[in-house]
Structures are given as C-alpha cells and as structure tokens.
C-alpha cells in the first residue's frame, strides 16, 4: 500500500510515566498474548525475551533526594529518518525478514524468513529486538495455552513487539465482515494497553485527530527545524520520544511532568538541556 493512501494509518502509543507503577502487567500480558517463552533463569536481562521491557530510571541523587520512574519500552516502531520507513532495523535486514508497513507504520518480523544474523539487533539503540538463543520449551502440557494467533518462534531467529499486529488483522477482518471501511479506535488495542491497570498506555492512530493518542501527542507533521530528519515531534511540552535526536522517529511517545524524566529520554551535552527544554515541543506549525 502506498504511504499516501488515504486509508493509511500510523499506529502509535503514548505512555504516561507519571501513571506507570512498574507493576509489570504490560510485560506479562505481552508475553501471554504473543506466546513468548520463558526459561529457568531469566535474571540475565540481556538474554531474556521481553518484547515489552520496563526499565527503571533514577535521577541519580542520593538519599533522600532519590527519585525513580518506570519506563515501559516496547518496540518503538521507528519510521526512520524523515519518517520514510527506513527504520534502523528494517533498512539493514539482509533477507527482508523485517519490514515496514506503510499502511500501518508497524515494523513487522517474519520469523520463518529470519536466518538469525542479528544485524537488526545491533542497529536498534533501544534493545527492542530479542534473539532466540534457545529452543522455546514449555513444561509438559503448558504448550496447550499457546495462542494460535501468533506462531511460537523457533531457535535462532529474532523476535520483537509487533504492536499485536494480529489484533489489527482481526479488527480489520471484523470490519470487513460488517461491511465497514475502517476500524474504530477501540477495536484495535495492543495487549499491553488493555492490560495496564493504571491506564498509562494510550494506543491509536497518530494520523487520526480524533484518537486519544493524537490528542495527547499532537504530532507535528513538519520536520523539526533543528533536525530535518525528525518528523512527528510532539507539540505537547511534556511529551518526548526516546533518542529523538537520532532521527529514528519512534511511534512510541512518553509523557511526564517531571523534567529529569524528560531529559533522560535523550542525550544532551552539558548545558544543552537548559537551552532546549523550553523550546521542547514548541516548534508548532499550527
């Protein structure tokens, strides 16, 4: 589908870090929805498959000035420089095993195509991609709870968050069956969004002004003035993206009223933040 297609969506997410409690529901809902395996020791977080991973951030101050915040990190579904669909991972995959959906903005992963070179993992600064170092194994009988909507991955391939793409397909199928042209906002919601007990995750179409995600993010359709590769910067001063300056153009936004949290979203040279922060999000073109 062409990116200029009127029916094209740009699915994205905004996560309210002030509401997030770090409870882990999103992680488990994701694992359960997407048949993510588990193994005896999952305490080495560098080989533990968590499509949705909740990071703990601290402000680095000592007792009792310490603050912490939790930051859930799904795949950021980057649009790549200029939002043209050349995500850091998609552009490097040699076997076209990960692809950018111009009609959804979703970065897909084709497990049967992937041959496990892991170049995409190196290219992703968010560690959103996971490799199946082991054969997935479930205790005897437990494989009965696996969902047929998502195929379990074999050893030796890369996997990652798909924004629960199968839910989009199901919603589209239903809309088609009902004779509707398009799906409603609430028909397609990711498993982490629906599970979050704090309601901290809002998911929807960043192209659709009626969707809550658009209302909160208010994405700027024009390239940022200081860095033309950055598109879709939020015009909400409390909203930021991770490593926005790299030009990866993630579709996952974060919201926080705390300045140190927003600052932690990207890298800044000494003194730079103070110049940028007031500027942040204010590059409105109306």
């Amino acid at each position, binding site marked *: 589908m062409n990116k200029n297609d009127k029916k094209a969506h740009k699915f994205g997410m905004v996560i309210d870090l002030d509401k997030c409690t770090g409870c882990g529901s999103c992680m488990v809902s994701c694992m359960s929805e997407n048949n993510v395996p588990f193994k005896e020791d999952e305490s080495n977080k*560098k080989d533990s498959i968590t499509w949705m991973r909740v990071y703990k951030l601290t402000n680095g101050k000592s007792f009792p000035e310490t603050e912490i915040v939790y930051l859930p990190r799904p795949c950021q579904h980057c649009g790549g420089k200029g939002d043209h669909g050349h995500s850091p991972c998609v552009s490097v*995959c040699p076997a076209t095993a990960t692809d950018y959906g111009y009609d959804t903005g979703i970065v897909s992963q084709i497990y049967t195509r992937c*041959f496990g070179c*892991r170049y995409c993992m190196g*290219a992703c600064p968010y560690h959103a991609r996971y490799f199946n170092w*082991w054969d997935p194994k479930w205790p005897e009988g437990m494989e009965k709870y696996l969902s047929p909507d998502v195929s379990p991955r074999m050893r030796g*391939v890369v996997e990652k968050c798909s924004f629960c793409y199968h839910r989009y397909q199901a919603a589209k199928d239903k809309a088609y069956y009902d004779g509707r042209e398009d799906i409603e906002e609430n028909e397609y919601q990711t498993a982490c969004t629906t599970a979050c007990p704090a309601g901290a995750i809002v998911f929807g179409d960043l192209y659709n002004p009626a969707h809550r995600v658009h209302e909160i993010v208010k994405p700027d359709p024009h390239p940022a003035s200081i860095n033309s590769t950055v598109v879709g910067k939020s015009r909400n001063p409390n909203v930021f993206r991770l*490593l926005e300056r790299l030009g990866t153009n993630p579709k996952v936004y974060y919201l926080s009223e705390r300045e140190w949290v927003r600052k932690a979203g990207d890298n800044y040279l*000494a003194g730079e933040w103070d110049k940028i922060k007031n500027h942040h999000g204010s590059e409105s073109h109306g």
Partner: protein
Amino acid sequence: MDSALIPEGAKRCAFPKFALGIAIVGAVVLWGVYAMGLIWWKGLNQTNMNDNYGFALWIWADLAVIAVGGGAFFTGLLKYIFKVDELKNIINFAVIIGFICYSSALLILAIDIGQPLRGWFIFWHANVHSMLTEVAFCLSCYFAVLTIEFIPNILENRQANKVPFFHHLAHNMHGVMAVFAATGAFLSFFHQGSLGGVAGVMYGRPFAVREGLLIWPWTFFLFTWSAAAFGPCFTLLVTKITEAVTGKKLVKDNVVHLLAKISGWMITTYIIAKIIDTIYWATVTVPGLGLDIDHFYSNNAFYGYWILFTEIIICGVIPGLLLIMKSTRENPTLRLLAIILGVIGVCLNRWVMVLQIMAIPVMSFDTWALYIPSWQEVATTVLPVAYGIILIAVTYRYLPVFPQEKELNAVQPVTETE
C-alpha cells in the same frame, strides 16, 4: 613417500615430520570442529553472546580476516591491472592467504547465523538496501574469484600437471587471469566497503554512524582503503613467518620492498583520512546527537582512549611512516615491526567497529555491556587459524607457490622443517 607430489627441485622435510606437524595443528582443528558441531547442534546459546552483544568475537574475526585477506585482491589488482610485474613472485601466496581468509570468513558466517540452513535466504530474499546483503553477494562471488585464481596453482602440482587437460586449463586460466582479477577487485571494493558500511549506516548507534557520499558512509571507503593498505602487510607477515618456519628465503627483497612501499603509502593516506574522519565524527557528528566522545571511552577499564590512540597512532601512523621511508622500510627488523603493527591496527579497527559499538549504551538509562567469549567461540575462532596453517603447509609442500624458491635456495641444501 610423497616425493612424487613435491615440486621438482624443491627440498621438503621428511614426510613423518610433516605428518606430525599436521597432526598437532589438526588436533586444534578438531577442537574447533567439535565446538562448531556443538554450536550447530545446540544453537548459539553455546556462545556468550546476548541481546546486547548480537555481534561479537566471530564477526570481529570475520571482519579481521577479510581485512587482512585484502592483500589478495590488492596484489592482484597491482599485478594484473597496473602491471606491477615483480608481484608475480608473491601473487600465488597472496591468493592462497586470501583463499584461507575468505573461506574462513564464510565458515564463520555459517556458524554465526542462528539458522545456518536458511543462510541462503540472504541471496534468495535479498534486501538490496542492506549493507550485509552486498557483503554476502560480493563476498561469495569474490570467494569464487579466489578459487579461480587458486586453481591454476593447484593444477601446477607435479602430478596434476601431467594430466593434459589440467595442464591446458592452468595455462588458459593464467591467460585470462586479468579479467578475473579485475572482477575480483571490483567485488572486493564493494564487499570491503560494505563491511565498513555495516557499521556506518547504523544511525541508531552514534559510535558507529558516519555521514558519507550518496548511500555510502565514510566507513565504506575507509574499510576498502584500509583492507588494501593493511592486506599486503599481512601477506608479507605470513610470508615472513613461512620463511622463518621453513628456514628458507622464498621471496626476493626487491619484491618485499616494493609491496611494503605500496602498503606504506596506502597506510599513510588511509590514516590521514581516518584521522580526519575521527575528528569530524568527534566534533560534529557525535555532539550533534547530544553526546560527548568521553561517553565512548570513559566508563570502564577496557574501552578507554588507549584503544583510539593505539589504533590510529601506534598501529597506523607509525607503520605508515616506517614503510614509506626507505631506510626504515629496508631495515628487516623495523619492517617486520611495521607490518606487525599494521596487522594489529587493522584488526583493532575491526574490533572497535564491531564490539565497542555493541558495548556502548545509547539510551541515557542503559548500561555498558561487556562480554567475554565462551570457549566454543574461541575454539571456532582459532579453527580458521589452524586450518590456514595446514593449508599453507600443504600447498607449500606440494605446489610451486614461490616462483623464486628454487633460485633463492639453489646453492646449498638447507635444513628444512615442514
């Protein structure tokens, strides 16, 4: 007992001695093969790689052997295209080294990928925008070229050459070698460059990313250039080692000096470009992404500024200068020092462009990831080295690799080892 196979007029050690040497190195090969079997059977969990360190020791070894194997294409280019005729005396050996390096690289790739049986998808489902695709295509094709370049030398074996067809084939292949060499140079330019591109296009990784020309980041050109510059150093180094082991002089000094001189100029020009690239990256690219270069060099004891200094100054500027100056170039000790430093330098560069990239956190709340390879990784990385030693020993013993050998060793018989 194998005297019928040994080139006419060449002196070789006794077969049992040779066999013993092969057996010792062969044991190392078996160790590597065992590790390889484990990895294929049980999967990449046999390594210490992880989701932060998706690229590790093997990819470094891969990049390093391809870089040092660059001596083959560059020497071929000089010999067949630029008609530097003296190099005919070392070209066979350069080709064999290249063959070892590239076959090792392909083997490593076959171990490294999670689904070896699907490795061919890189060709079949090629994504032409990926640097790795370009690497795979050019690498495989160039390996074919190396094989083609190697065949005539094999066919010149005393027994093989008795078969008329083989004799004619070798002769004819020599005849059109320039075409193959040109193709090889073309392919090498792209796959060496693309290996550099692999790092340079990772715009999510500020340590790796570079600006560039059209679709090619500067690392593309730097890699090609450095392979051409340091590859001959490796050819010379292996020649030197072979000479030391066999106790014979195999290549005349004028040939060595010529190749060293060319290498020296290539290194010097390369290192100037590399310094400019580093300065631009450190002062423009990285600050533009909100990072100070201290970020990349000051977290832990291992990845410090020493690595940058060693790569560029000690193993770049110094060998370059040593090799372009006649006095130091023609001093055997200093020349040897220079080529050793050069080889270390290019290997270090490849290390930095693979492992350091993976180690450095990008998100402000992420942490450094350090990694120590598992024994299986070490064994499979040592495997190509052992295999290379065996192949060199066998080819040296049975093939007329060094055209000047007979002439240089005509006077009195020398004590030989394998």
